[in-house]
């Protein structure tokens, strides 16, 4: 894509073990990333078939500035979500974008099901379908070890993308792990891998990409690099990391706690970013091409024998969302116990946020007598991490009917057993750790993938004064941000750097490599991408007016006090009116 008029797409047929490469000039107008991936999903998806049908595609894409500028490190994955049945979209860092870039593929489309478990080994001049039979049923670490052995010649230039048993067993919120510590976490891409017998992908780069205009490129690179490292724009992500959010959200009354019965956690100080830094933090890492280093790794030791002081030491990545979902939401107040639960979820290969929210609902459902001790096998009680660790295993193994149902997500489980009012999801996707107000709640409902990252609704709430609720303004703010993020995600900028990459910086970065884009081009692309996503959602049967929000969102006060149900639906209706107008404008 860089320096080219075309987007280079690699299509992989898992069943036939054949590939084809297509240079697509028509895709250039979508910039890259989510723009290109949306079109490829739309072209290849089969709305009439279930999400895990072998015919359904997995699409990966990077953007036109990936790797060559700091913090443009993400890859987007698009698929049909087995959790929500509609648009699946997820982002991961690590080395994947760098390796796709150096292997020379802007996008990859994977379809059909392999005859047996497979590792796809992709490089600039080869795609190999390797036997993964011995690895099926084993942990993700084994995969890394095996890939490192057969790709040893690509040491330092490869990325390993794999699933754990959760994905193999097609748990609806199974994740895909990239280079040990990064994930395509949300919406169940892991299950889609599992449904194709795709255990892992290794990608290795190797192409030479000569710089066309060194002076202008390096000048722009240097300016952006300095803003990332010397200004305070990125400092919070490097320093304490995202867990810095625990205390302010708790103080504001926006921290979902005990299955969101509460908006504050009495032990928030014990699980704050500072507490994790003091007690557990041992190391930070970066995605390739990012000088910031936001990946925070904590460590705990575990005694594995009753006598003889036998310990193992385990290092695990942590972030705000994990502390919320597997900590405050479940009433865990010891960072070491939270890390241990994170590790269980990591080994299982599940999305941490969905897993925590599902377990929160299960705990309350047991307490209320909707399910029995026989169903849960272990007594799930808020604050009891050992039982939660066991429950994670049961979800993955589908130990009984109850755990099989939990493996389909909290919406599904609550439809079977009741307790829908406290099943904390939005349109089937388990909630994020922000009960900040209408912005976060409606933002997730209207967001293309029902994620807090679709439009950053929590940020709309944080900028709003109490008692000053204007549904029209909230709908406007959510829509503007959702559309703008379509553009940012077409470059696949890490959204932590969204303040570095303002429009001016993006245009200069393009100009420095000889692509003369205008502000209007970016706006037009953003709208085109947004319209594509809306078409996909419509084809998959999504209707905003059918979204029903669980009652607890309106019972537990948010940062802005108790939310009014009618107002939330009013904002959604306003949003619907605005997107209808936007769609006609794009068509026109």
């Amino acid at each position, binding site marked *: 894509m*860089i320096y080219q008029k075309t987007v280079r797409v690699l299509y992989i047929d898992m069943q036939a073990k054949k590939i084809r490469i297509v240079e697509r000039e028509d895709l250039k107008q979508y910039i890259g990333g989510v723009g290109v991936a949306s079109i490829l999903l739309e072209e290849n998806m089969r709305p009439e078939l279930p999400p895990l049908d072998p015919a359904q595609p997995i699409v990966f894409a990077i953007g036109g500035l990936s790797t*060559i500028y700091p913090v443009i490190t993400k890859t987007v994955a698009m698929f049909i979500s087995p959790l929500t049945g509609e648009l699946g979209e997820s982002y991961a860092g690590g080395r994947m974008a760098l390796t796709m870039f150096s292997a020379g593929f802007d996008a990859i489309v994977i379809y059909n099901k392999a005859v047996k478990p497979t590792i796809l080994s992709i490089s600039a001049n080869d795609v190999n379908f390797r036997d993964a039979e011995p690895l099926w049923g084993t942990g993700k670490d084994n995969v890394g070890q095996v890939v490192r052995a057969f790709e040893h010649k690509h040491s330092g230039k490869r990325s390993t993308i794999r699933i754990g048993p959760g994905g193999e067993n097609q748990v609806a919120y199974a994740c895909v792990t990239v280079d040990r510590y990064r994930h395509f976490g949300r919406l169940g891409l892991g299950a889609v891998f599992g449904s194709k017998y795709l255990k892992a992908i290794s990608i290795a780069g190797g192409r*030479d990409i000569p710089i066309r205009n060194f002076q202008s490129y390096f000048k722009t*690179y240097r300016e952006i690099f300095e803003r990332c490292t010397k200004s305070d724009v990125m400092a919070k992500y490097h320093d304490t990391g995202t867990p810095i959010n625990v205390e302010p959200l708790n103080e504001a009354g926006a921290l979902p706690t005990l299955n969101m019965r509460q908006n504050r956690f009495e032990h928030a100080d014990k699980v704050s970013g500072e507490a994790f830094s003091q007690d557990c933090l041992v190391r930070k890492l970066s995605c390739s*091409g990012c000088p910031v*280093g936001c990946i925070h790794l904590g460590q705990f030791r575990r005694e594995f024998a009753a006598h003889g002081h036998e310990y193992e030491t385990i290092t695990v990545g942590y972030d705000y969302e994990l502390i919320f979902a597997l900590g405050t939401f479940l009433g865990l107040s010891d960072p070491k116990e939270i890390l241990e639960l994170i590790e269980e979820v990591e080994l299982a290969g599940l999305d941490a946020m969905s897993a925590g929210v599902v377990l929160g609902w299960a705990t309350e459902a047991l307490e209320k007598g909707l399910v029995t001790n026989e169903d849960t096998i272990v007594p799930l009680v808020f604050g009891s991490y050992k039982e939660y660790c066991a429950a994670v295993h049961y979800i993955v193994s589908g130990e009984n009917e109850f755990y099989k149902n939990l493996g389909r997500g909290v919406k599904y489980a609550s439809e079977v057993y009741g307790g829908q009012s406290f099943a904390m999801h939005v349109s089937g996707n388990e909630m994020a750790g922000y009960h900040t107000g209408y912005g976060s709640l409606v933002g997730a409902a209207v967001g293309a993938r029902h994620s807090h990252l679709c439009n950053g609704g929590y940020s709309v709430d944080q900028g709003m004064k109490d008692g000053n609720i204007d549904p029209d303004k909230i709908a406007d703010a959510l829509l503007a941000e959702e559309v703008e993020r379509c553009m940012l995600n077409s470059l696949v900028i890490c959204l932590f750097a969204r303040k570095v990459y303002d429009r001016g910086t993006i245009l200069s970065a393009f100009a420095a490599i000889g692509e003369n884009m205008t502000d209007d081009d970016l706006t037009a692309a953003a709208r085109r991408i947004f319209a594509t996503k809306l078409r996909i959602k419509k084809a998959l049967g999504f209707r905003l007016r059918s979204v029903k929000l669980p009652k607890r969102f309106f019972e537990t006060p948010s940062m802005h006090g108790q939310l009014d149900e009618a107002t939330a639906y009013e904002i959604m209706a306003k949003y619907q009116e605005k997107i209808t107008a936007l769609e006609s404008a794009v068509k026109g």
Partner: protein
Amino acid sequence: MAKVLRTGNMSKCIGCFSCVLVCAAFNRKSHSIQKSCIKIRTYGGVSGKLVETVCHACREPACAAACPSNALTLRKGGGVTLEKDQCIGCRRCQSACIINAVNFDEDLNEPIICHHCGLCVRYCPHECLSVVEVND
């Protein structure tokens, strides 16, 4: 006094690859990490150690001794300089270096020789690398 690169603080490395990317960009005018003089890789996966491979500026470099055409001449302070017109692309320098610090440019058919410019040091956010002054 000549300047040479020194490593030794790699436990601070976050694996950002900034050193690799700027070296390839500045010295080889390429976006490809293959072209960099310095390599960063993991030892035992991402959860293991990060290790660097870069020229150690030997005073009596094996790469130069192995070169049949005297294309590698001794650099002040240690290491070598490549005389491109003398190089025949035999790769003996590459196999002579026991720390594998000589990369090879397949497109230009010549070794990629670090000249200790220190750019990697400037772009390292964690002072994993340094430039020190040594006697000529």
